């Protein structure tokens, strides 16, 4: 079965979504993953956007979370205050899974999407938090898309934009954050998860044709690879959903 790396990544992430989840999603591949899950493993999942649109019809793939395509046939079109309250609120927040991306991630799943180098005069500036810090602060589960490169998996992030497990077990509680944190990191090489006790990242699944060694070579910190198995490749029906239903115009994929 032929498939592209981006298709594999979208499907690996889509499999993380459970039926009934409320999916907070951003743009690009995270939107593709959320839309795919609705047609695969989680038909009762609900996609919502920080801009305030809930359960949009998404006849066409949006290019930004404020794209008018998220407004069409939504259950409601609110605003930013409503959308973030949906996640901060424990009644609905407990059901939310966030999908995020970042420029850097450390072994505790802390994310940097702000800058590299000095904060005031950075070497490289990125977009900044947007709603990412809010999502990471509020919701019990997060999937993070990353590119596996040494500089993107540093020992310490240059700027901690969105909280993962901070400096380890008990840290979120100590700082006053809600329980929760990142649960999966989907990269171009592997699926990483976090140990329940140590809160440290480990290698869960390597993609077909990728060795655990290669994954470690693309990280500044070391992770446990003893539990790793090969990831199940996309099935014909998963690929059909991606190509014919989710992104037939090939805008993202």
């Amino acid at each position, binding site marked *: 079965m032929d498939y592209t790396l981006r298709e594999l990544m979208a499907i690996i992430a889509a499999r993380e979504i459970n039926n009934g989840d409320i999916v907070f999603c951003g743009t690009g591949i995270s939107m593709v993953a959320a839309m795919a899950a609705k047609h695969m493993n989680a038909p009762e999942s609900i996609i919502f956007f920080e*801009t305030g649109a809930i359960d949009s019809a998404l006849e066409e793939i949006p290019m930004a979370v404020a794209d008018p395509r998220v407004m069409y046939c939504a259950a409601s079109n609110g605003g*930013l*205050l409503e959308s973030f309250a949906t996640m901060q609120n*424990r009644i609905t927040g407990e059901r939310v899974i966030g999908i995020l991306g970042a420029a850097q991630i450390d072994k505790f799943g802390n994310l940097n999407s702000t800058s590299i180098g000095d904060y005031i005069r950075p070497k490289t500036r990125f977009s900044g938090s947007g709603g*990412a*810090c809010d999502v990471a602060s509020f919701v019990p589960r997060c999937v993070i898309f990353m590119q596996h490169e040494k500089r993107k998996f540093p020992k310490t992030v240059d700027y901690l934009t969105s909280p993962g497990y901070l400096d380890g077990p008990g840290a979120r509680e100590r700082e006053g*954050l809600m329980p929760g944190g990142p649960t999966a990191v989907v990269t171009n090489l592997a699926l990483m998860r976090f140990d329940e006790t140590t809160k440290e990242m480990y290698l869960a699944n390597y993609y077909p044709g990728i060795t655990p060694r290669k994954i470690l070579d693309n990280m500044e910190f070391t992770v446990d690879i003893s539990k790793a198995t090969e990831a199940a490749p996309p099935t014909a029906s998963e690929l059909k959903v991606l190509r014919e239903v989710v992104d037939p*115009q090939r805008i993202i994929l």
Partner: protein
Amino acid sequence: MDVHADKVMTLAEAIRTYVKDGSHISIGGFTINRNPMAAVYETIRQGIKNLHVYAHSNGTGVDELIGGGCVGAIEIAYGGNGRAAPTCIRFKQAIQKGTVVHEDYSNYQMSLRFHAGAMGLPFLPTRSSLGTDIINKWGLSKEIREKDPKLANRKLVVMDNPFDGWADCKKVVLVPAINPDVTVLHVQKADRQGTSRILGLTFADVDQAKAAKNVIVTCEELVDAADLRSEPEYNQIPFIHVSAVVHVPYGAYPSSCYRYYDYDPAQLSDFAKAAKDDGTFKAYLDKFVYGVKDHQGLLDRIGKDRLEKIKADPRTGYATGLDRK
């Protein structure tokens, strides 16, 4: 207040009257949607400098204001603009070169800050950002804050829950209110007194308006008050908040305006390409901003065919099947 006051004026007059060098300003919309672009271009055209901008994620407008040399400082959550510019290009360059003072917040925090301003409170609490650099790292120093009476003396404050763990919460982050000198919005419909109706997502526009000392509303359609008042439950901003009303069709172009027109992917992408280099960016500004008298002049340069392509489909509210590659 004269409830019948006619606030309609030209865009040039509205900007000249309410947007001054050094004004603290916020603009409406979100990334590629309903940014008040005609007003942004007019601000650049008038050469207004040293604005202090409050932004959650107003990508299209903020990047042009920075590129146009209008911005001295920015408090911001997100400087990105969809696929054309995952990080806004002039914003990125300005921060890397140190030409704009910047300070980072989250989108919820910026929304709450406008909400606090609209409510007349000094701050509001949230549980977002505990343990992060959004709390630890300031862009506006103590010295800058002390010199400017419009700025709170601290960025964010972490506080123990004074209700002793009530709502299963130990700590909260207090975010300071924002009261801009002026907020500029683009809406679908307004009347001559300023009562406004937004279709689709409102983002944080309503609080941005209610928190501001002055509000400029640009609108797709200038309608009779009776039209809006026949269904008042669909109006978000009553006229009491509004200082100026300007009728500007396609006033959000090249960002979208739900149920009227889509974003123009070609223009957003041309802007992003031009923005990468000072020379090409100057040529872009000369062509689309300085080289035209007003927004109609810019639209004439874009041409009727391009505008026809982005016209909203009445069923979906956007341009169904638009080529967005």
